[in-house]
């Protein structure tokens, strides 16, 4: 089709003034393009290098988590949540555990809440570090990708001390943790608190005022606050557009109200603002971790919920009650009361919600994940319209679209 006709048909009058070569070409961007960081396809209509329209195809790694969850006992759903946003699995795990705790009305000790805050903020740092360093890669800067990965590695080592896993963590249990923070964790966390801020500022200094980086990212893929809200944006992408909504402040959970931290917002909602918002959030997360760690209360590391914690083996062999709980947990026969609950946490990408309906059985009657990626990725064609393909790449990485969360 002739470009002018296409513009006319789509009411793109502002673009028709400077058509590039007068012909529309269709290109497949993805599904396995290196710059998509996951499997998703975009069919782009381009005039020269200018994007006229885009259409996304999603679902390449759909794994039917919501259906799987209807057949699983509650404790076995935690590993499913790992695989949503796999850059910050602990937030997903803990969010899910808190949903079940809300449903059964469990009282969670203060120490557990603070431990969770520390882990969730570490996860947020890891998540934002990946996103921000990948924006650098897509703008052509590889050094700024490798530097922060040293630090991310330290966060993964901290996960290992808590739960033994690194990426798909299955961290914690419904009601708390399976063990307390160990000595190595304390040593490593203290060292991390000392070494991370200067290392982070070094990474930041490579990009923040870098002329090339700024020229590439400023004005790339912008979205206004009004449009972002209409698209149900949450998280850093919404805050970059200038709306200060954060679940941690709006509806605090796990004692977030105890901590002093700021919610950074941007102005233009473009790639640079999204980058800057995430960078500042990393600093704020460090503040939260420092506060939580220095005020870490004494007390038990788990709630009094024997139906969710395997009893010690010696007790299983010698005590009736322990044997019953052991059997019930292993066979997945832990029933929870009927009820309907929605619980949201601030995930790496925004409001991560769990809508759980229980009919009183051993597994959920219905579980729906509110996945922020899935919701805000809809706006992508609108954001890249009129941009070049290289801007589209930057926009995609700065939105932090994680395939696992997109497709559930």
């Amino acid at each position, binding site marked *: 089709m002739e470009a002018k006709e296409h513009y006319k048909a789509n009411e793109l009058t502002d673009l028709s003034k400077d058509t590039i070569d007068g012909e529309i070409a269709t290109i497949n961007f993805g599904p396995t393009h290196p710059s998509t960081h996951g499997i998703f396809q975009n069919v782009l209509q381009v005039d020269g290098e200018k994007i006229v329209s885009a259409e996304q195809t999603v679902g390449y790694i759909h794994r039917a988590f919501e259906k799987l969850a209807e057949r699983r006992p509650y404790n076995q759903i935690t590993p499913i949540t790992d695989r949503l946003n796999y850059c910050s699995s602990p937030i997903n795990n803990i969010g899910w555990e808190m949903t079940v705790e809300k449903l059964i009305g469990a009282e969670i000790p203060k120490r557990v809440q603070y431990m969770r805050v520390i882990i969730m903020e570490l996860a947020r740092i890891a998540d934002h570090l990946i996103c921000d360093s990948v924006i650098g890669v897509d703008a052509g800067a590889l050094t700024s990708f490798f530097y922060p990965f040293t630090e991310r590695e330290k966060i993964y080592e901290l996960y290992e001390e808590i739960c033994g896993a690194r990426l798909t963590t299955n961290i914690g249990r419904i009601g708390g943790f399976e063990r307390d923070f160990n000595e190595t964790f304390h040593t490593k966390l203290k060292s991390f608190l000392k070494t991370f801020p200067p290392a982070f500022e070094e990474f930041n200094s490579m990009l923040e005022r870098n002329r090339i980086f700024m020229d590439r990212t400023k004005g790339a893929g912008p979205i206004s606050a009004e449009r972002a809200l209409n698209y*149900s944006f949450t998280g850093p992408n919404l805050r970059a557009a200038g709306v200060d909504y954060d679940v941690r402040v709006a509806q605090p959970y796990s004692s977030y109200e105890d901590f002093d931290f700021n919610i950074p917002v941007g102005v233009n909602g473009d790639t640079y603002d999204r980058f800057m918002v995430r960078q500042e959030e990393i600093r704020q997360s460090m503040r939260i971790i420092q506060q939580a760690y220095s005020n870490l209360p004494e007390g038990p590391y788990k709630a009094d919920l024997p139906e969710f914690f395997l009893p010690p083996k010696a007790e299983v062999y010698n005590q009736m009650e322990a044997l019953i709980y052991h059997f019930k947990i292993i066979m997945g026969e832990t029933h929870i009361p009927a009820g309907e609950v929605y619980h949201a946490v601030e995930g790496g990408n925004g409001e991560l919600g769990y809508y759980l309906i229980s009919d009183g059985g051993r597994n959920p009657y219905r579980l729906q994940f509110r996945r922020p990626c899935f919701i805000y990725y809809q706006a992508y064609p609108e954001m890249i319209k009129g941009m070049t393909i290289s801007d589209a790449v930057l926009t995609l990485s700065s939105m932090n679209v994680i395939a696992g969360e997109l497709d559930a």
Partner: protein
Amino acid sequence: MNAISNEQVLNRLNEFFAADIRTSDEPYGLLTLEVNPSKAYEMIDWLKNDSVLQCSFLTNIAAVHYPTDTNREIAVVYQLHSWRNNFRLRLKAFLPIANPSISSIVEIYNGANWMERETFDFYGVNFTGHPNLCRILNEDSMDYFPMRKEFHLEDETREDKDDRYFGRF
């Protein structure tokens, strides 16, 4: 801490939609209303623009299948959030499985587009007026709605594993 209590929200809604609110409940503090499906669009639109409630953020859309509830098998659940007044609201519309149709709210919230497509994909809810109601996560050639309860997760023909021994069916 809600700036507006659930009671106030309900009273305000009752002023305009008393006939269309069938039941109300507050599980875990979240006001849940069962509404007349044909008025759901109007209510969501009104909630978005009402100067008192300012319930102008769509959190999510989900569907639930209750096979034993005759003529109201499919529930479409809208969760809304008022950031100004910091309260959440859940609206449920029950539809018969023979013809699960409800007005699309894409015109009110663009973000509803994929949420509705996902709900259609898994439950077969027909959102009338949706600009592009097709499958999103599943394959296009699929001819059933997999999240409905009649589709069991495990293979029914399996003989090596009998769940009846564990009290499950």
